[in-house]
């Protein structure tokens, strides 16, 4: 058990035993070491299954929406990037922050099991972070990797190690900001010709099996009834003109979350088809920054995002679509 995990479980136990909270949202060990899943703990007894290891990439903030409806006070463990999603949910009245205790916890970047498997390592039994290195133990021995080889995409281009909200923090080791530019992938796409770009997205989106995992995990997707599930919206029942039209789902979804997406990267993490969905969202974020000034959704739990606000500094929309117009 690592030090951070130890402290987290200890704190969870205190909170439950003192009845300061009724529930704790954290991660529960799965069938394997590398598949912990989000879980609600209501008793000290249940905490024996609590884990916090290198594979706890899941953003827990969205689980509050349903759990809070059942009543009671909840403690939730949020990594730096998850705190932004939490604020965004508070802003949209999806979460009552007074009913939540946010325990902000250390994160040195989470691991991508798929990348480890690609390296030829299977049946992982434990991982250990050692500075810029990760030692992966498996049933068949152990292997050493440089961190950037095995981190999740969202962690490689981590937007910030700052907590946007925290009632208390559990940090043992210093968290270093990454030097990677999270928009370089978008810029690569922007350099493509329209035909190339269309071909790229057609290729990527055609892999989609419409499992809706991206939507279901997305903290910005909390509609009572999603337009794609609503027969009356005219969208759910519409027969696609061609096989690709169906995949426009992702474009529409990117529009729906634009200005509210915190770039938590969960969509790409959970996609079983490995579609780089974060690129769509990041394109919006990049354009918002360019046209309306730098903006990070979820930095605060109130205020308006640039897409639903007008200021005189905003770029002129007609000029903006033509290219190089910027926020004044």
């Amino acid at each position, binding site marked *: 058990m690592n030090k951070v995990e130890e402290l987290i479980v200890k704190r969870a136990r205190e909170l439950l035993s003192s009845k300061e909270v009724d529930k704790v949202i954290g991660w529960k060990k799965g069938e394997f070491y590398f598949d912990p899943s989000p879980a609600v703990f209501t008793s000290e007894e249940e905490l024996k299954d609590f884990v916090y290891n290198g594979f706890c990439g899941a953003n827990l903030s969205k689980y509050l929406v349903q759990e809070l*409806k059942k009543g009671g006070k909840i403690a939730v463990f949020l990594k730096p990037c998850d705190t932004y999603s939490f604020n965004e949910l508070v*802003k*949209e*009245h*999806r979460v009552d922050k007074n009913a939540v205790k946010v325990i902000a916890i250390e994160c040195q970047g989470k691991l991508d099991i798929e990348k480890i498997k690609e390296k030829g390592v299977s049946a992982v039994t434990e991982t250990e972070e050692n500075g810029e290195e990760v030692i992966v133990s498996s049933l068949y021995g152990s292997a050493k990797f440089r961190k950037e080889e095995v981190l999740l995409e969202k962690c490689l281009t981590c937007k910030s190690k700052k907590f946007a909200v925290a009632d208390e923090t559990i940090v043992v080791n210093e968290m270093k900001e990454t030097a990677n530019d999270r928009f370089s992938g978008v810029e690569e796409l922007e350099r493509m010709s329209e035909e190339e770009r269309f071909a790229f997205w057609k290729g990527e989106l055609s892999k989609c099996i419409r499992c809706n995992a991206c939507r279901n995990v997305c903290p910005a997707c*909390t*509609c*009572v*009834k*999603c*337009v794609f599930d*609503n027969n009356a*919206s*005219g969208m759910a029942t519409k027969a696609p003109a061609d096989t690709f039209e169906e995949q426009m789902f992702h474009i529409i979804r990117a529009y*729906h*979350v634009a200005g*509210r997406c915190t770039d938590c990267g969960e969509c790409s993490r959970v996609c079983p088809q490995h579609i780089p969905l974060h690129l769509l969202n990041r394109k919006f974020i990049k354009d918002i920054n360019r046209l309306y000034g730098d903006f990070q959704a979820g930095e605060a739990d109130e205020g*308006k995002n640039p897409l*639903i*606000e007008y200021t005189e500094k905003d770029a002129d929309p007609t000029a903006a679509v033509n290219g190089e117009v910027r926020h004044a």
Partner: protein
Amino acid sequence: MQRIGVFICWCGSNIAATVDVERVSEAIKSEPGVVFSANYQYMCSENGQQLLRNAIKEYHLTGVVVGSCSPRMHEATFRKAAEAEGLNPYMVEIANIREHCSWIHKDREEATEKAIILVRTAIAKVKLNAPLTAGESPVTKRALVIGGGIAGIQAALDIAEAGFEVDIVEKNPTIGGRMAQLDKTFPTLDCAACILTPKMVDCAQSDKIDILTYSEVEDVKGFVGNFKVKIRRKARFVDETKCTGCKICMDNCPSKKGLNEFNMNLNNRPAIYIPFAQAIPNVAVIDPEQCLKLKSGKCGLCQKKCGVGAIDYTMTDKIIEREYGAIVVATGFRPINIDKFNEYGYSENKDVITSLELERLMNAAGPTNGVLLRPSDNTHPKVITFIQCVGSRDLTDCGKPYCSKICCMYTAKHAMLIREKYPDTEVHVFYIDVRCPGKNYDEFYRRACEQYGVDYIKGMVGKVYNQNGKLMVQGSNLIENEQVTIPSDLVVLATAIEPEPSVRKIATLLTASIDTNNFLTEAHPKLKPVESPTAGVYLAGVCQGPKDIPETVSQASACAAKVIGLLVKDSLKTNPCVAQSDESMCNGCSQCANVCAYGAITYIDKEFRLGGGKTETRRVAYVNPAVCQGCGACTVTCPSGAMDLKGFASKQIMSEVEEICRK
């Protein structure tokens, strides 16, 4: 099954010359749901409307499509006709086959094809129309006039005359505006103050008019009949209710370096001052930039000398909130900044002045007590040259593309007055064109030329420069086809005018649109010249476009007539095409309220049944139909698609798009 009637208008030859109306009617006949299809020369005529009414009766129509001009022209006409026959007026749709089709196409084949598509599109929409009923909203029987110049004063007086309460909000310490600064007025040459100040006094004495000077509109909420306005009453440091206007404070104020704005900064005034003798209210104001007491804490002389204890250095800005049914914008103008016009040397030579500065130099209450002395050495100028169109009709970045309209006449006035008062003075006027339409205007200009011997030179001035104490005005004489240089003692620039810059903020607050020159836009340039496109907001004076005093006064009275017409009503019919939230889908995220410019959206906690005896309380949006203006911003913002606009539902728009795309 819907029973739809389609009526194609020829609009004389406006549509019929480019669109084969017969073919459109024929093509539409076979559209599903269409039971009647006809065309007629003028659908808006009595006979055209009768055709529509007869068809509704005879064919039991449930929906009507009229292919005609823009809905802005005759939608109301056809809706009324349908209503008279018992059909809900909102079951009528207009296909714009004039502005959107016949007027912009030359090819008859293409235009006819497009007209058919546009009419089919309107049919697709009308199939999804639902009958709508207008609600009612009350009317606050009080008007706000923004700006206390002659436009605002006239509008306020007329509104008060009809028995309604009206507030004038003026940002300066007194009402009167630009007209108060003028000496004489064309074309009758009566003194501006003599005709303006009685009106100012009438305002002050009216028990219906509340004058809020030194005040600015801070915030506007609400809608026609129900505006809620926040007004900032700037700290005057003098109690308006106590000050008697005795001017003892002015005489004792040691700070005399403040520039006298009323005299176009040509002389100085004390830090505590009354702008001019006939100011309304006749109450002093302290300029905090100049007051020694406010700046350094040392002085306080005026407070000691004031016999009624009116001075209060601790005064702060106050925000008051009032409700109004109608708003008149009369924010006026200012001369443009001419520093950029290097060729006229305005910033280098004291004796190059603007026309408004000349007004003050000629005025008995001005810095020279009405004796025309040039600013540099206080001597009588013997040769005076006027330059017209300085910054007007100017397509460079320095000036304005429009004609300022008043300069030809006031320059003729100035020239005439100078020749009258100082017959030994030589007066030249450089002009591009002399524009004097208006009652007795051309006669006035001709008098200047013919009776007063003013030398009018057609041509533009290239340069004004100083040579041995003379201002050399170098220009071209296009009639003689020669270059001329006139050594002058005084040069007067007929400076272009522009809307008061504060109008931009006010336009934003009122959601009233402004054009590229910052003039407020009227609802229709010919038929709704005093209405702004925002219901309940009216425009008077130069804020809407350059105009002289007679025009301004007429427009102000026209505004008042519109305001009175609104305020006599006890309630207004509201537009039923408003937003509505589908509570079963709304998740209360607040995005719609964030974009709503009218504050029409609030949230309520509502209990929903989930089945199995369970319930859930959810925060959902509620649209106040009386406040909603139907702009649709919320509908496109709502991520859940819970918000929709009645009469313009997303489904209707989509069906229109699909119809246009139909092959």
